[in-house]
């Protein structure tokens, strides 16, 4: 199963919100994956196939994972279209 990591600045609220929305969207799309959330520092040392984040963190994320950027962590339509592009 693929590992998807949702990232924000502090790893507290925003990344968790993104994670919950990503989990819901993946369920709707019928895709199974391990979804976790973290702050931008921790993300660099975590294993992931995909990292979903906002482009303000682009410069800070150090990882070989495929980066997917969304503007609004609460916009499920945007998340769905971004995930469809990469995962389908």
């Amino acid at each position, binding site marked *: 199963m693929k590992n998807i990591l949702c990232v924000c*600045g502090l790893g507290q609220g925003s990344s*968790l919100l993104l994670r919950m929305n990503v989990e819901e969207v993946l369920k709707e799309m019928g895709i199974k994956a391990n979804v976790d959330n973290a702050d931008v520092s921790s993300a660099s040392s975590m294993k992931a196939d995909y990292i979903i984040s906002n482009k303000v963190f682009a410069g800070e994320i150090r990882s070989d994972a495929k980066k997917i950027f969304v503007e609004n962590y*609460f916009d499920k339509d945007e998340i769905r279209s971004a995930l469809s592009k990469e995962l389908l």
Partner: protein
Amino acid sequence: MSNVFLWIANNIFGVPAFLIGIIVLLGLVLQKSDISKIISGTLKAIIGFLIINIGSDIIVGALNVFQPMWAEVFGLSSNTMPTGFMGFDKFNATFGGYIALIMTLGFLVNILLARFTKFKFIYLTGHMMFWTTAVFLGIITHVKPDVSMTLVVPILSIIMGTYWTLQPALTQKYMVKITGTDSVALGHTVGIGAWLSAVLGKFVGGKNPKSSEDIKISEKLSFLRDSNVITALTMGSLFIIGAIVLMLKGTDVSKELIAAAGTQNFIIYSIIESIKFAAGIAVVLFGVRLFIGELIPAFKGISTKIVPGAVPAIDAPIVYPYAPNAVIFGFLGAFIGGLIWMVILGNTVGYVFVPTMIVLFFHGAAAGVFGNLTGGYKGALLGGFIIATIVAIGQFYTVMYLLPSTIPDTAAWAADTDMFIIGPVLYFITKIFR
């Protein structure tokens, strides 16, 4: 029969780890998670909860170097930090279960209010629910150490649930203008501060306020988004400045503090202590992330079933993308304001303000976005300064007067805007009913 209740009270409710485990377990079972998720989720929540305590001890250690150092810099005659307090480690070990219980019951109150009133907001910012409940409980148990938890739990749950429903309502008028949608709300303790920034912003913006987004700001400032880095940098600078001042002052107290470094150069020692502060925070945040990461999805699952048309009230950063420059102006206003207040408070009431970057950044930034809405970049700067004022003065009276015997260590870095505004109200209510 009462023995059974006593046993349950002491061994389950009284052991936070178990109570949290049960709440998360129930949440996962209600969400029909598979058995492996139930086991791993419950354990992760408990582990996260205990990690918070470990991180808190590190922070207290660093604060115990920071406060005396800067007290001496300001020439204050005695250590300004309360002494002999419980500390978050011990507080959480005693009351942690109640914190989790109040969060859960408070959340249920939130759901009921959302279901039956026009305020359809469901507060989903778990870490803020945790810290706010902890600080309020810290105030109540300081005023009345032997307070009956059978009384406090329902009352505080109702208060929290009401706050979590109404704060998003307060900011929604401006949120709709910022995000362009009514389907999301702000659920964050910057709430009252952000609202104030939007209200006061129009007085500095003039007739045609220049928006912060019309001003060009360098991309190089993006590293400010990493809280570990910015905390370490600021605390590091403050520790180094403090160390140099002490070495130059050469007073007896300075020599004593310098002696604590042993054979190590005092500046090197200070740098390490400041980074320990950032390290302690990083550990605590990791613990909260694990714990909240299991609790909040369960809460969300329950709320979507019960409240049709629920509007999620979420973390402050959701407004940042709508005015990224206002974020910087707001933070600048808060940061500079924080330093100014540090000097003012040190030289007047003799309190060493701990300017935590996390609070100043996240709250200052949100207030900046709200201030920019009505007052352009000047409104954003003002918003940041308003936050710094509330946080500096609030930290002072909360640490020194509202909860000095319980968790002033926590109030010094994790308490913020709305907590400082509502805290005194709880303090006086508890005093009346003592």
